[in-house]
């Protein structure tokens, strides 16, 4: 792999950019692999990467039915934070956030990680109490957050309207080391590093069946023929139900559409991420100047990557109350992704009823922030059979009543 550097840019500038190599090989599927990962989104690629890096497992294929990063990884609003409530969540999300801090250097790929700070506004007394509690919990977990006053919110976000008639801003939960990153780059950076370790990333290769013998996985059928494997990782977000059906078990997951939109680019006006969970909207400004906006998920099952218009209307209406200046902005684009929702709003990283089949799903509306930590834990789970990071997130927690309730932390989709 040719490393990217300031020197490389200068060198290529002098020879008309003719020397850049492909970031990853376009591989042909082999007959068999030690490990197959289904789904080349961020979580699948990160799983493959840490399998190679931390455990030396490199006879790995990542199979993707569309194009790399074309699922939710390329459709999200890129918010990174770790201010969750429960201990297992704090552990995996904070691991993830801290990995993001140095990931550009590690992957030699600019992820444009921007720890600009994230505020979650408290706009009801209930939220004030909830976020104070979260701040205390975070202090015990070693996650740096603080509950801040309305005056401090105004200082951080001059364009905010504190005294909205219905939902005045009463304070906020502030995580200074939260922020955003370039979503595509996360997928591309991991893919390049995986390919460099000799792994095969195979796009336009849809898994259509999971072959088993005596309760154990033996391989998959794909649109490009059968491929054998000893272990299989299912990492397909909204399509988890489809893959689990192929493997013969059901999941506590429903797939619904979540949408986002961006405005025309404007001059820099807001350098932190602001989330307003009561009114269901959140906003940040991209490096290009667009306001990146997201809101709530639809309530019914959907696989079309198209959401309901009235949700956009609700989100925008809420944001106009909180940020009156956005009322004149034109919206450029709107899109949707299919998110995999669990009942307790926490993910599933687990063994499954089929030996050799592992699943990583249920990240729902908020898994971009978790990509490095999830990949780290999932790789350990697949290589060793257990991982302290993923233990609490096993599939049997529903049966056993061990919910990891994050419905407050994940109150709005992000």
């Amino acid at each position, binding site marked *: 792999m040719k490393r990217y550097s300031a020197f490389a840019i200068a060198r290529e500038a002098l020879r008309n950019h003719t020397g850049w190599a492909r970031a990853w090989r376009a591989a042909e599927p082999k007959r068999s692999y030690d490990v197959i990962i289904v789904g080349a989104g961020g979580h699948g690629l990160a799983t493959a990467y840490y399998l190679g890096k931390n455990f030396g497992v490199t006879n790995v294929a990542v199979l993707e039915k569309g194009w790399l990063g074309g699922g939710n990884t390329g459709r999200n609003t890129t918010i990174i934070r770790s201010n969750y409530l429960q201990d297992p969540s704090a552990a995996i999300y904070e691991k993830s956030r801290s990995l993001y801090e140095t990931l550009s250097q590690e992957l030699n790929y600019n992820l444009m990680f921007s720890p600009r700070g994230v505020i979650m506004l408290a706009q009801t007394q209930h939220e004030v109490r909830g976020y104070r509690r979260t701040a205390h919990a975070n202090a015990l977990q070693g996650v740096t957050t603080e509950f801040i006053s309305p005056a401090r919110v105004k200082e951080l976000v001059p364009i905010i309207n504190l005294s909205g008639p219905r939902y005045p801003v009463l304070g906020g939960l502030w995580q200074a080391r939260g922020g955003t990153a370039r979503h595509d780059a996360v997928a591309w950076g991991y893919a390049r590093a995986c390919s460099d370790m000799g792994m095969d990333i195979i796009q336009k290769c849809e898994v259509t069946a999971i072959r088993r013998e005596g309760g154990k996985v033996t391989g998959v059928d794909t649109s490009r023929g059968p491929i054998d494997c000893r272990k299989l990782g299912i990492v397909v977000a909204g399509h988890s139900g*489809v893959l689990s*059906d192929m493997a013969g078990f059901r*999941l506590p997951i429903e*797939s619904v559409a979540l949408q986002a939109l961006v405005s025309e680019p404007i001059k820099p006006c807001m350098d932190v991420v602001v989330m307003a969970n009561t009114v269901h909207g959140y906003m940040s400004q991209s490096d290009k100047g667009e306001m990146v906006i997201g809101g709530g998920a639809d*309530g019914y*099952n959907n696989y*079309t990557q198209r959401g309901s218009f009235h949700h956009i209307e609700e989100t925008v209406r809420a944001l106009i109350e909180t940020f009156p200046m956005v009322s004149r902005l034109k919206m450029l684009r709107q899109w949707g992704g299919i998110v995999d929702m669990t009942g307790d709003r926490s993910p599933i990283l687990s063994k499954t009823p089929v030996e050799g089949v592992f699943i990583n799903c249920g990240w729902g509306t908020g898994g971009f922030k978790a990509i490095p930590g999830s990949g780290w834990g999932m790789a350990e789970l697949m290589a060793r059979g257990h991982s302290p990071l993923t233990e609490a997130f096993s599939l049997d927690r*529903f*049966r056993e009543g061990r919910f990891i309730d994050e419905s407050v932390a994940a109150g709005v989709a992000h």
Partner: protein
Amino acid sequence: MLILTCPYCGITADETELAPGGEAHLKRHGPGSGDDEFHSYLFTRENPRGVHFERWRHAYGCGKWFHAARDTMTLEVFGTYKAQTTEPPKEVRAAITARHPGWSWRDFS
């Protein structure tokens, strides 16, 4: 915009008038049931990419719960029917079969 006809009052309403209620025809389990039964009743779902039976409430209309059969891949609606039943009516199943020969959902197809 998703549009469904309420089988009680006959009003064709768009989704802003309706509240979604998740998968329909769940088999309910109560005291005396085992862990597996509770697990499947309370948590696991079909979540299919295709034919889906689901519950809706005409929240800003007559207020009643009803059932709908929809395709989650195309958003086509095959029909709606009253909630006081344990399985979808013949017309709805016929409409689905016309579009997806050989479809399956529990023992209904």
